[in-house]
């Protein structure tokens, strides 16, 4: 009982530290209001432009591989919402941010401070402008929810929530792996972008439009298909590919955290090595 209380106090303490680190960044970014506003609008516009380009072209084609705009919006909105939330949370681990800290030597400063390293990295790159994208992602997702012929149930809501949580963990894990790689090499981290930003783009569209090998790679080697594609297929009442059982649609909240856990194991190895070479 006392141990649980002690653990709880420690978690609360770290959460307070984390929020404090965020607060500092929010205050500094909010100094130039006009710049922040434009920055947020610009960040939003990138997503708007991408989705608008598809939405504007779709009437000419009627659909995308048998999917209408509402159904695509569901997939797109889920991926975007999860990725934005993940980016807000895990932005500190993203390779460009972390490698900048490693190169500038401020990462070594992190190691000296009496605050857990992970808390500091989590709190090292909070971009306020990205908050605007949450609203946008929610709007695309809402469009998808409204424009799919479907009677929504509580179970669906739970499945979609699990899908988003799974994706946050999954892409967060990829960010952690990419960040850890910067301990060894500063270059060639761009290859991780294929998995992170590429993966996000990949799962924004119905995955049966990709060639067999690409879809299978991102189902069985990199299990991205489990994150949102299978849950959405299940909700729309469509069969899963390769004769997979319906239960596979519920694995997102398992697949994501598993990858995240593996990523943090890799992170610990990386940090140990980093300390070793630093002294």
């Amino acid at each position: 009982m006392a141990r649980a209380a002690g653990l709880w106090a420690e978690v609360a303490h770290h959460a307070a530290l984390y929020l404090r680190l965020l607060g500092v960044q929010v205050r500094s970014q909010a100094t130039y209001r006009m710049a922040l506003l434009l920055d947020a609008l610009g960040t939003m516009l990138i997503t708007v432009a991408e989705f608008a380009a598809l939405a504007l072209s779709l009437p000419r084609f009627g659909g995308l591989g048998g999917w209408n705009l509402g159904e695509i919006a569901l997939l797109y909105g889920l991926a975007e919402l999860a990725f934005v939330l993940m980016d807000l949370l895990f932005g500190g681990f993203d390779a460009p941010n972390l490698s900048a800290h490693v190169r500038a030597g401020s990462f070594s400063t992190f190691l000296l401070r009496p605050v857990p390293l992970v808390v500091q990295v989590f709190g090292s790159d909070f971009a306020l402008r990205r908050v605007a994208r949450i609203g946008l992602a929610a709007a695309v997702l809402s469009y998808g929810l409204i424009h799919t012929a479907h009677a929504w149930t509580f179970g669906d809501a739970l499945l979609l929530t699990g899908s988003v949580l799974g994706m946050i963990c999954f892409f967060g894990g990829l960010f952690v792996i990419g960040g850890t790689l910067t301990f060894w090499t500063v270059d060639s981290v761009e290859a991780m972008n294929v998995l992170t930003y590429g993966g996000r783009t990949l799962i924004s569209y119905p995955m049966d439009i990709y060639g067999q090998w690409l879809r299978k790679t991102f189902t069985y080697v990199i299990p991205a298909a489990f994150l949102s594609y299978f849950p959405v297929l299940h909700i729309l009442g469509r069969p899963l590919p390769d004769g997979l059982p319906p239960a596979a649609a519920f694995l997102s909240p398992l697949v994501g955290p598993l990858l995240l856990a593996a990523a943090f194991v890799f992170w610990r190895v990386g940090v140990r090595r980093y300390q070793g070479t630093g002294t």
Partner: protein
Amino acid sequence: MTTAPAPARAGGAVLPSVALPWAVARLGFRRQFAYPQAALWGLITNTFFGFLRVAVLLALFGLRPQVAGYTVQDAVTYIGLTQTFIMALSLFGWTDFMRTVHRGEVATDLLRPLNLLLFWAAQDAGRAWGQLLLRGVPMLLLFELFWDLTWPAGALGWVQTALSIVLAWACGFLFRFLVNCAAFWSPDAAGFGRFAWALLGLGCGFLMPLAFFPEWFQAWLAWTPFPAMLNTVVEVWVGVKTGAAAWATLGTQLGWALGLLAVTALTLHRGLRRLEVAGG
């Protein structure tokens, strides 16, 4: 990085005025080859995204042989071309000039015996040419390897395409430079830039061929210089526009280039005067 001296040429006052920007362009070109490994990874990333985009377009086409003047082969060529020109035409944005203003390095650049806009144009032309050779051409060959691409038709097609690429670069460079001039007025022009690059991506036809958009949206975009920065190149290349229609669209590009040149030169002039006020 070795600095190459401006090639010494004998003769009149005209030659040296070309020699200096030429030397700047050559340096801009050579700099692109400094990090071959980064270029390789960039190529891999661009290829991956290219494949995803082809999959989306092929799924859109379905069984249709042709949509809005584009055959399936043209559409794949369109993706290949846009991926080819990402770096050469800086379609994701460009903040180099902005940075020199914020850091005050622009003051040093002003001391150079070369007009500031010409200095940057020469540097960017060299950079663009270097990126086209380093990353553009391999990308195009990769696409040709996996799919059959449409190529410009005959000598006239190639000439018109080449002219269109040069004009697209000119329009794009001037627009990028104009956006960077915001740095004279704002302490944080990055947000302004982000906004502008997003507009560029949608308006220039990077995300989708403009011909696929509804008529009202195309008519609206025709009033902006964005189509001249990429979409025209694609239309001339794949032959959506040929012969007289191609010449007309090249004329439109030229018009936008001249218009942007006037606006950008004026804005830069105003900005530099502001800089003097701040510095005084």
